[in-house]
């Protein structure tokens, strides 16, 4: 069985500037991956490159056996990639409902199902994108990505700004989506411990390079390994 | 030193570009017909575009005099354009032949201006006279709200009132005006015998259409005006609505004379079948004035000498007999009353009456 997503020696950035310096990893269908790393490590850049909205320099991205490296972003979405951008980027002149329907693709996720996951959105369905609270925008961004009925979800800090109770619900929902429906996901999160239990694999980025790629479990289980890749000491060393 | 340069400054682009084209074509038609050497000098025409902006006209004039060493300036599509060069030509002592601009005051702004077009009062007054003679008692005037329009309104009204007529209303239309509806409705509601109209030439055709569409003609209101509204250049495209319009002007392409027949033929041949209008005539006769003056000075290109030679010139132009008033340097010419008629499938301004040797009434009155 081939991997759902295969990234090979990917170099990308913004215009001339290169942020990712050759990143490789794979993700199988139905599995999930935590993407970790400090501020500025290039996590967002990686996800955005998979979506196709950064400048690609070299390397390949293949998805479900098809090479997507040169495919336009809208085609990638059609191929089954759903995206929650870091800054949410809700379409501000569309209502909540239009935000969901404008990009919808057929599949199990419908407006009603998103509403049942986030009742708050249903209450605000006629509000326009720029009239939502930060957390509501976050919910909408996630709902919007689900409306694409993707095979792979790319979540860039999806928990940021959500109330704890919603975070819990959301994590549960994500688990259900990944385990129950076989959707794959790449999740970026600042608080590694929140998502490590949820994901099978982990990639840690450091200055545009992969510093750890492997199972998630050992990171959680062994605090020494966790610290080596993700904790403060390392941070101090780097800025000194 | 064997060339004699004429700097022709015209609006070749912008809203008044058609003026520029006609004048230029007229001037070129003259050169084509009369050769390019006069009194041993080769005439060279330097055409420049001022886009209808006065400070450009002024700069170009100055540059032509200082750098290109032109011997005469000519052209000037609009009054402010002509006025802006007045200080320059006075200082540099270079004659300037006004070929299109039509406000009376221009020639007073400098001793070095002469004019071969005409002045609005010159052909507005005859309309008033004709209207009076033809039993029109109540008139509404309708003019574009800028210098020439106001000139036309003033002088028509003055003459018409003097003859005992009544101007019931004076309507002015803004220069930028997409729709005539409210103004025409006003005219209609005033129920005059006739409406006297001056509009810049392109606009005239639209006006005419709406005039008919709105049923003013049916309501018995006669359309009279200066020849600008039945500009020969576009008259033929106006179609039926234009028929029967009475206008006064110094030139009609249909003017019946051998000189004119020849001119029109040559002009059309050289300009892709474009019909000459009064602006082309201004350009044509302007060149004649320059030629004749140079002839008279025997090739002496000195500005003062040229101006002196131009004063009092008299000749038979395609438009009829004309002369340059030695006192005012303005043109004296016949003004014709014309009616738009269908002549062999083409609309023409057909002349039916003549006011002979009309002077600019403004200066005549002073």
């Amino acid at each position, binding site marked *: 069985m081939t991997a759902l997503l295969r990234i090979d020696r990917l170099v990308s950035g913004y215009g001339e500037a290169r942020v990712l310096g050759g990143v490789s990893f794979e993700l199988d269908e139905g599995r999930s991956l935590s993407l970790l790393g400090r501020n500025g490590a290039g996590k967002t850049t990686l996800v955005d490159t998979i979506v196709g*909205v950064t400048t690609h320099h070299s390397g390949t991205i293949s998805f479900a056996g098809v090479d997507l490296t040169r495919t336009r972003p809208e085609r990638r979405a059609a191929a089954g990639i759903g995206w929650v951008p870091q800054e949410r980027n809700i379409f501000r002149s569309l209502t909540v409902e239009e935000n969901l329907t404008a990009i919808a693709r057929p599949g199990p996720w419908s407006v009603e199902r998103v509403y049942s996951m986030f009742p708050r959105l249903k209450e605000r369905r006629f509000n326009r994108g720029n009239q939502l609270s930060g957390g509501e925008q976050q919910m909408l961004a996630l709902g919007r990505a689900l409306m694409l009925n993707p095979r792979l979800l790319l979540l860039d800090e999806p928990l940021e700004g959500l109330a704890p109770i919603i975070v819990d619900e959301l994590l549960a929902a994500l688990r259900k989506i990944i385990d129950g429906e076989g959707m794959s996901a790449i999740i970026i999160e600042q608080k590694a411990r929140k998502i490590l239990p949820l994901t099978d694999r982990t990639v840690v980025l450091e200055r545009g390079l992969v510093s750890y790629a492997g199972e998630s479990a050992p990171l959680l289980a062994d605090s020494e390994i966790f610290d080596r890749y993700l904790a403060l000491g390392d941070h101090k060393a780097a800025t000194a | 030193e064997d060339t004699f340069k004429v700097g022709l400054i015209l609006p070749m*682009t912008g809203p008044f570009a058609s003026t520029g084209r006609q004048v230029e074509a007229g001037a070129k038609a003259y050169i084509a017909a009369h050769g390019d050497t006069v009194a041993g000098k080769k005439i060279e025409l330097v055409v420049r575009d001022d886009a209808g902006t006065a400070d450009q006209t002024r700069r170009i004039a100055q540059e032509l005099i200082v750098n290109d060493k032109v011997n005469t300036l000519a052209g000037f599509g609009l009054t402010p354009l002509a006025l802006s060069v007045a200080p320059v030509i006075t200082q540099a002592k270079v004659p300037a032949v006004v070929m299109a601009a039509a406000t009376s005051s221009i020639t007073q702004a400098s001793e070095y201006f002469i004019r071969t077009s005409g002045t609005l009062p010159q052909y507005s007054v005859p309309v008033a006279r004709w209207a009076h003679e033809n039993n029109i008692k109540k008139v509404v005037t309708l003019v574009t709200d800028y210098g020439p329009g106001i000139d036309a309104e003033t002088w028509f009204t003055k003459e018409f009132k003097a003859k005992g007529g009544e101007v019931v209303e004076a309507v002015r239309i803004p220069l930028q005006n*997409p729709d005539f509806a409210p103004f025409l409705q006003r005219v209609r509601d005033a129920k005059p015998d006739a409406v006297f109209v001056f509009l810049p030439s392109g606009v005239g055709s639209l006006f005419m259409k*709406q005039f008919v569409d709105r049923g003013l003609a049916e309501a018995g209101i006669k359309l009279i005006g200066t020849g600008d509204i039945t500009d020969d250049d576009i008259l033929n495209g106006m179609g039926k609505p234009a028929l029967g319009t009475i206008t006064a002007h110094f030139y009609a392409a249909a003017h019946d004379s051998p000189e004119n027949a020849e001119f029109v033929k040559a002009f059309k041949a050289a300009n892709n079948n474009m019909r000459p209008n009064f602006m082309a005539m201004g350009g044509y006769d302007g060149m004649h004035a320059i030629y004749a003056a140079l002839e008279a000075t025997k090739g002496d290109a000195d500005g003062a000498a040229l101006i002196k030679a131009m004063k009092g010139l008299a000749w038979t132009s395609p438009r009829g007999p004309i002369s340059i008033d030695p006192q005012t340097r303005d043109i004296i010419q016949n003004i014709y009353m014309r009616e738009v008629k269908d002549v062999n499938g083409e609309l023409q301004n057909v002349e039916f009456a003549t006011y002979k040797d009309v002077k600019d009434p403004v200066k005549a009155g002073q």
Partner: protein
Amino acid sequence: MLTILFDGIAYGMLLFILACGLTITLGLMNFINLAHGAFAMAGGYITVVLMNSYGVSFYWCLPIAFLAVALAGLVLERLLYRHLYSKPHLDQVLFSVGLVFMSIAGAYYFMGGQQQMIQLPQELSGRWDFYGVGIGRYRLFIIVVCILLTITLQFLLTKTRFGSQLRAAVDDGRVARGLGINVSAVFALTFAVGSGLAGLGGAMGTEILGLDPNFPLKFMIYFLIVVTVGGTSSITGPFLAALLLGVADVAGKYYVPQIGAFVIYGVMVAVLLLRPHGLFSREGGR
């Protein structure tokens, strides 16, 4: 009195028909397309040439002008415009003014500088007298066409998914693409429709406004006024604005001709001071 009202409405509708394409390109696509008038002019010249040289009926000219100009718009969009969506507004101004200049010179070259005229079919010229109110037939025709257009456009833009996709693409093109909206196709199609509408406006406007190479510059201000006063977030806004401006302008010129020239600008400035985002824009809209 009622005649003036009718004339005002008709004049407003004429403004609207010319401006509604711009409502789409400027209002919805957020592209400052000052060359809108050039597309309108193209529609006008197509009509003039077809009617005067080939004797095509006026009614046929309208759809032909729409389609031909839409096609031209599409080609230009693919070749040039699409590179400019992401550029600053000022670049768009520069570009479209460049296009205006070229179109003016082009029109001079091919069509000459004089006013072009068309002869309307018999049934559209003249007017009816309806209990003392003069109803110009052509003016009535314009009003009817306008109302139909407005309804269709409003439906397309607010009630269809295409409309949402368009607005999403304008709000944030990068993210819209990342979420599967074919932004370039949406823009191309919209731009083509906008241009086509300009062409239609030009074809219908020739009779009343005339047509000469300066058309794009001469009427640019009026298009912009309608769109600005109406607000850029809907089609109905500019529609109502055009009505208001038309009636105000005609009535102003009829009743107080001395200040007739100021009316339309005065109304515009007053409206914009009171409602900076346009008379009929939703609060907080773009």
